[in-house]
C-alpha cells in the first residue's frame, strides 16, 4: 500500500466513534449499571442465552465498539509503517507434502468453525472476535503451505481492505441508526426472537458476523504486511 498518512476514512471513523460515545453517555440510561445487574435481568430482554454476548454486544455495546476501534487503529498503524517497502515477490516456503495436505484439510475446518462461532455466538460460547482469529489462522496456515502470492492471487487485497473498512462503517451506522428513529444510540431495534433459537438475540448475530469479518480481514492485512515487509513468510 502506498502510505497515506491522513487516511480520510480513518479520521471520519474516529470522529464518528467519539461522537457515538458522547451521545451514548448522554442518551442511554442503563449503560452505566454494574455488571451484576445485567446478569440478573431476564433473558428475554436481549434474547441471547449466552449472557456474555448479551453483555458485550447489547448492554455494553459501546465497550466492544471501542475495542473494535482499537483493533482498527492497530491495523492502520501496522500497514502505515510496514507498507512503505513492500517486496513484490515472496517465495513460498519449501514445505513438504504433509504440510500442504494438512493445510488443505484444516483450512475449510477453520473457516467453518469461524462461521459457526460467529453465527451462533448468541446461544453458545463464541463470538466474532474468536471466530475472526480462527479464520485468520486458517489463512496463515494456507499461506505457509502455498505461499503468500497464491493467496493474493485468489483474494484481491482491495476487496479485503474494503471489507475491513466497510464492516466498521456498517457497525457505526448500525449503532447510530436508533438516533434518527427517536431512540438512544446503541438501542437494539431488531426483534429479540425466542431465546435458544438460531435467530434470536436481536442484533447480536449481526454484530458478531460483522466483527468476525472485521477481525479476519484486519488480522490478515497485518500478517500480510509483516510477510511482505520482511520478504519471507
Amino acid at each position, binding site marked *: 500500500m502506498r502510505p497515506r498518512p491522513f487516511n480520510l476514512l480513518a479520521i471520519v471513523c474516529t470522529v464518528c466513534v467519539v461522537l457515538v460515545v458522547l451521545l451514548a453517555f448522554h442518551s442511554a440510561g442503563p449503560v452505566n449499571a454494574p455488571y451484576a445487574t445485567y446478569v440478573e435481568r431476564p433473558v428475554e430482554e436481549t434474547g441471547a442465552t449466552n449472557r456474555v454476548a448479551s453483555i458485550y454486544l447489547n448492554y455494553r455495546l459501546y465497550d466492544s465498539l471501542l475495542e473494535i476501534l482499537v483493533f482498527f487503529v492497530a491495523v492502520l498503524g501496522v500497514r502505515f509503517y510496514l507498507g512503505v517497502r513492500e517486496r513484490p515477490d515472496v517465495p513460498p516456503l519449501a514445505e513438504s507434502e504433509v504440510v500442504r495436505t494438512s493445510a488443505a484439510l484444516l483450512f475449510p475446518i477453520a473457516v467453518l468453525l469461524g462461521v459457526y462461532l460467529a453465527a451462533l455466538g448468541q446461544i453458545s460460547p463464541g463470538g466474532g472476535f474468536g471466530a475472526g482469529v480462527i479464520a*485468520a489462522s486458517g489463512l496463515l496456515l494456507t499461506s*505457509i503451505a502455498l505461499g503468500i502470492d497464491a493467496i493474493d492471487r485468489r483474494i484481491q487485497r482491495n476487496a479485503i481492505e474494503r471489507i475491513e473498512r466497510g464492516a466498521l462503517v456498517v457497525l457505526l451506522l448500525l449503532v447510530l441508526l436508533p438516533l434518527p428513529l427517536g431512540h438512544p444510540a446503541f438501542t437494539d431495534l431488531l426483534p429479540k426472537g425466542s431465546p435458544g433459537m438460531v435467530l434470536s438475540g436481536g442484533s447480536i448475530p449481526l454484530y458478531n458476523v460483522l466483527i468476525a469479518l472485521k477481525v479476519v480481514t484486519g488480522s490478515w492485512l497485518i500478517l500480510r504486511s509483516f510477510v511482505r515487509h520482511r520478504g519471507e513468510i
Partner: protein
Amino acid sequence: MIARTAILALLPIVAVIALSQRRRLTAIIGMGLFSFLLAVAYLLLHAPDVALTEATIGLGLITAIYVLAIRRTGRLAVVADEAPGLFAREGDRIVGLEHEILERFARHLGLDLSVQLVPHRDVADLVRSGEADVGTGGWVRGEEAGVLVTQAHLDTALFTVGGGKGESFEDLPRVRYEGYFADLDPQSLYTAEASVTLDLARLLAVRRSDVPDAFVTRHPQTRGYAFVVNERRRDLHSALDAYIEGLRETGELDRLTRRFLA
C-alpha cells in the same frame, strides 16, 4: 475443584520453565503449553468464551507467529564441506571438533544449529551472500577475501599431493581442492598430472587410503583452521571469536581437540 487447583498451581511453574529456556523453540512451545493450561483453567472456571479466545489466540495464532519469527533468527546456519575429524558425517550424524565448537556456541546463544554440507568452493560464497551465518569445514586462514575470519582454533599446514610435475611452491595455487571432499578420489592423484593442495586433516584422511609418501610436499608456513563469518555480521564474528578464546583459556579446546583428533 482439585483439577482447578492443580492447574492453577501448574501455571506459574510452566511459566517459569518456559521463560527460563535458552532454546527459543522450546520457550515458544512452553508458552503455548501455558496458554493451553490457562484455557483449561478458564473452562473449569465456567468461562468457555474466554477459554476459546485464549486457545485460538494464545495457543494458535501467537505460537504460529512466534515460530515464523524465529525461522530466521532462531538458528545458526552453518555451511561446511566435510573434513575428517573436524566436520564429518558419521552415519546420519555430524561429528568433529568444529561441529562441536559450533554446537556449543549455538547453545550458548540460544540458537539451533542448522548444517548444510556444500562443496568447499561454495562455503565463502554462501557466507558472503548472507545465506549462511558461519562457514567452516577445514577452512584454512588466508584462503579467501570478503569474509571475516575468526582466530584459529587449531594449527595446520598445507600439503600438495599428486603426480604433478614438481612445481615449486611459488607456482602452486594456494588451494586447488574445491569440490566435495567425499568426491575426492586419492587414487587419481597419483596417476594423472593433476595435483591438489590439501590441509592436514584431509591429507591424513587421504593418506589412510595407502598413498605413497613421495607425492606429498609440505608448504613451509604453519596455518590455522578457522571459521568464516559474513562481513556485515561483526557482532557474530566477535562473539564467536570470544567464545573460542574462552574455550582456549579454560583448556576446554585442548580437551576437545584430543577427543576428536587423538
